[in-house]
């Protein structure tokens, strides 16, 4: 028997392991799952983010240095019956940054003069319960 020890062999062994696990899953998953828990990471590419107040517009990427970022979230799904399910999502997102603004910025009644170092913090915390 010849056993190769290169990185390609490790990949092959991993693929064989995954295929084996998948076969086991197919064979043993005939009964429906009633609970699912997803833990996941999410990368957000913001392509529009702005504050419009009358004639005043602040664009988060150009004016505040907003950048895309990673976040994590959780989801739980309860399949009560084949036609009824409950879902719970928790999605916290926090993004912060700073830059020297190139023009006067107005947010609410406050004006940030050009040349100021502007920092921002966006916090979105989403809890969602749904039934379908």
């Amino acid at each position: 028997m010849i056993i190769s020890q290169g990185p390609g062999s490790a990949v092959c062994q991993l693929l064989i392991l995954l295929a084996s696990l998948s076969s086991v899953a197919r064979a043993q998953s005939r009964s429906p799952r009633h609970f699912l828990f997803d833990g996941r990471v999410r990368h957000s590419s913001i392509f529009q983010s702005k504050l419009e107040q009358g004639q005043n517009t602040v664009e988060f990427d150009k004016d505040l240095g907003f950048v895309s970022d990673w976040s994590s979230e959780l989801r739980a799904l309860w399949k009560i019956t084949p036609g009824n399910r409950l879902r719970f999502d928790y999605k916290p997102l926090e993004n912060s940054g700073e830059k020297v603004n190139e023009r006067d910025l107005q947010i609410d009644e406050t004006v940030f003069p050009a040349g100021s170092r502007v920092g921002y913090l966006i916090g979105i915390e989403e809890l969602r319960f749904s039934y379908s």
Partner: protein
Amino acid sequence: MSLDVSASAQGTSPDELLAASINTGVWAGTIGAEFDSTLSEPLNFYGFVNWIGGGPLDGTWEVEVGLRYFLTPWLGINGGYIYSGLKIVIDDPAGFLRVQSNNIFFGATLGF
């Protein structure tokens, strides 16, 4: 949904601090349509469209498509795409906050 947005600035003079903030906390209703292939086979494909409205939220949409693949009867991996379009009405002074984003996600799934 709870949303807090704030911005602050340190002026050119160390003693000068400018700050502004917009804080919105809201519970909103959501309605949508969902497709879910199955929860019992190794491959689970799903998708849904949600509209979120009420309070300061106006025209907020979320579309998600994803899949779960079970490697064992109880452990799987997941991944997919989300489009999110958020629009919040600000009353005083009147205006809107708009955030649109493309999102990709991946992670692990436990199923029982």
